[in-house]
């Protein structure tokens, strides 16, 4: 069966520090991968998605970047964190080639930038 792993679960970082969040998927090949951010008490905002290795689409201009160095690995990064980068970050996947199909989410990373 397919599983998605996301770490760390919680992260406290000072303003101006770098960021690296990692997500891996097991049990599937060539998944579509997604990074969402959720502000407290709000819905989910799509940040990035990827349909294959090295293919990244950005949904909103921001201080963050994403990379997909391997088929089942998706990384969210920042060179210098801002206070406004605080939030709950969620990685998600769905099967390759599927158009309208449900996403499966990881357990999330709660990022606090102080």
């Amino acid at each position, binding site marked *: 069966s397919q599983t998605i792993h*996301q770490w760390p679960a919680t992260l406290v970082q000072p303003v101006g520090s770098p960021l690296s969040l990692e997500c891996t998927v097991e049990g599937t090949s060539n998944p579509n991968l*997604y990074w969402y951010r959720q502000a407290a008490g*709000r*819905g*989910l905002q*799509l940040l990035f*998605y990827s349909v294959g290795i090295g293919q990244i689409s950005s*949904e909103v201009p921001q201080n963050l970047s994403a990379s997909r160095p391997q088929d089942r690995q998706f990384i969210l990064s920042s060179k210098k964190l801002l206070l406004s980068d605080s939030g709950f970050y*969620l990685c*998600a996947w769905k099967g390759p080639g599927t*158009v*309208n*199909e*449900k*996403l*499966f*989410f*990881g*357990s*999330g990373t*709660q990022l606090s930038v102080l």
Partner: protein
Amino acid sequence: GESVGLHLPTLSVQEGDNSIINCAYSNSASDYFIWYKQESGKGPQFIIDIRSNMDKRQGQRVTVLLNKTVKHLSLQIAATQPGDSAVYFCALFSNTGKLIFGQGTTLQVKP
């Protein structure tokens, strides 16, 4: 662009009662809808989905109803239990294939 809205930010029900969570959408071309449950500090968990060729779908204690005429979606939870307390999101795919979420309804179950 497409939008998804939930009617109530918070719903409080008595344990054992039925819960109904509503969602409205704007894009009449939307053909696939999903309900997620999110517990505090966790990622959203898939509950049930429905495609536009159906108007009702049932799962274990949950039913999703789709009214395409008025662009309205609802999630019904039968015999609500304390473990059902969570935030519930409806979601649909945009014309560009992105999954768009509503703002969520917090379900509070009173013992």
